[in-house]
């Protein structure tokens, strides 16, 4: 059966696994009830998780065809940092407005 199919390239398998891990992670985060604070935290964690996975990909396949992956990685890292900063700001504001 496998003889008739064109074998998958390793990096394609990696990409599929990245997508798979990402989807399963989202399911893991939302499979039980999430309150508002944790919902924010989850969305903040999405990009850092993606960037770690993409970093593994980029550093493993150093071919010339992987330029797109590097650009995506760079964008995701920037988004992670922005996300964490926004989350920090929101939490900070929450702490500032709370009346202990």
């Amino acid at each position, binding site marked *: 059966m496998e003889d008739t199919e064109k074998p998958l390239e390793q990096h394609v398998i990696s990409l599929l*696994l990245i997508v798979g891990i990402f989807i399963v992670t989202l399911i893991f985060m939302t499979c039980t009830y999430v309150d508002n604070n944790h919902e924010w935290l989850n969305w903040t964690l999405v990009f850092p998780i993606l960037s770690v996975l993409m970093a*593994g990909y980029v550093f493993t396949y150093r071919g010339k065809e992987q330029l797109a992956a590097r650009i995506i990685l760079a964008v995701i890292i920037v988004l992670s940092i922005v996300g964490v900063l926004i989350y920090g700001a929101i939490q900070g504001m929450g702490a500032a*407005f709370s009346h202990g």
Partner: protein
Amino acid sequence: MRKLNILNKIYIVILVAIIIATVIKTHHYDAGDRYYYTASFTAPPTYRMYVQQSQFITEGDGQNHVFIKSDNVNSGSSTWGNGDSEDTEEQERLPKALVLRYASYREKAFYADTIPLPTKVIDEIFAGGIEKNINVGIYTSGGPELSGLIFLIGIANNGNIVIWLQGRKYERKILTYHLKPIKPTQDQFYESQFYPVKTYFDYFNIDTAGYKKMVKNGIDAHANYADSATHYIENYSDPVKF
């Protein structure tokens, strides 16, 4: 099967680990439903009460408690039928019992008991809360407003306890309960200290002369606050949105 490189093996391990974690998480999650709710007390101003201990025991195997504040009753600023607005940030399992210990100044009596709550009724009301649009916004410190219901616990005279569930244009009396006074032998708690039972009521932070006069004049002497309604629905108005 084709050979996989190290990266793909790592990815597969991560994938499998997360799937297992998801299964464990869903399996172990306390299966019961959780809701946002708050609770507060109300007492008639003519019958000063001091709540010494107040907490819900919530459903589930663990001995989980939700503490209930009673500042308004303890300071004497409570009027019958009006609770205090409390805040919450966490969803909790619904309560199955109320642990209550209080002293009644006018009756010079102590009451203490663990009151079982009608869990079926409470479950049903909470489960239909969003559908029936009876949930109200519950204030949280520094977070978005949460949608839930409010327990109002009335401490009436003669050891009568009334518990209502309140929401948006919604109120339901879920329990009336009668407590018998207890005769404590140990020192009793008031404000920040323990006082002997004999002299306990002398330490009440209260306008003694005014209170004596009121009692002498027989104000509310024959009242039965447990039968008295709250007028919550009549006075309900949706909060103004900015």
